């Protein structure tokens, strides 16, 4: 089956983020397709490249990055939600004249149309709320 996954919880703050990661892994292991993972609300912090948890803790953002890279997943961070919360790529850094960009290269900033398009072409949509 083809899934669209919506993640609304931030890593380290909300259990939803970690549940979503496990769900995505399990879906892939069973041979399903992840059409798109859409990070929205506080979930946009998943795309931050700056997270630095203590060594003895689970590296949630790194785990997301590996999952996305190894499976060549389409991971979209909602641009409107991300800009408010201080998650930017190089283009937006330039546009808003900010001092840095912090979006991990495994993620792409884009609009809500990406969520709708993915949903419309998937068998299932599942939301992980914070």
């Amino acid at each position, binding site marked *: 089956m083809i899934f*669209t996954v*919506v993640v*609304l919880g931030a890593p380290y703050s909300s259990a939803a983020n970690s549940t979503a990661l496990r769900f995505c892994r399990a879906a892939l292991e069973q041979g399903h397709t992840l059409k798109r993972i859409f990070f*929205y*609300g506080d979930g946009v912090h998943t795309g931050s490249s700056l997270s630095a948890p203590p060594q003895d803790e689970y590296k949630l953002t790194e785990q997301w990055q590996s999952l996305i890279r190894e499976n060549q997943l389409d991971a979209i961070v909602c641009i*409107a*939600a991300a800009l*408010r919360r201080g998650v930017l790529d190089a283009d937006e850094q330039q546009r808003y004249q900010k001092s840095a960009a912090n979006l991990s290269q495994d993620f792409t900033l884009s*609009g*809500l*149309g990406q*969520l*709708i*398009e993915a*949903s*419309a072409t*998937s068998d*299932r*949509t599942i*939301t992980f*709320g914070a």
Partner: protein
Amino acid sequence: MTSMLCISRHTPSGNALAREALDTVLAAAAYEQDIKLLFMDDGVWQLLKGQQPSHINQKDITKNLSALPIFGVEEVYVHEPSLQSRGISRDSLSLNNVQLLTNEQTQALIASQQHILSF
């Protein structure tokens, strides 16, 4: 067209969910999907008349709500038991063209969808 239902269950000003739900609905309408919107639980407070969120430096969600028909979102539903338990009368809603649903009608609405966007 895919049938989608956005369920919006949170207050207008406590966090960003209400606004994010509404933005999602408008995006679906722009993408010409068959999008419907259901308010229930504390989400029905979003419909209350007379909101002045400028007092807490927030934008008024009511403007976006009233734009729904313009963007082609015709089906806006409200879970009537949620209104009743909060003492909100139909007259005090900022939107006129909403359909009030009983529990059974809400169940039927949910059961008829292909996708739910949960907010």
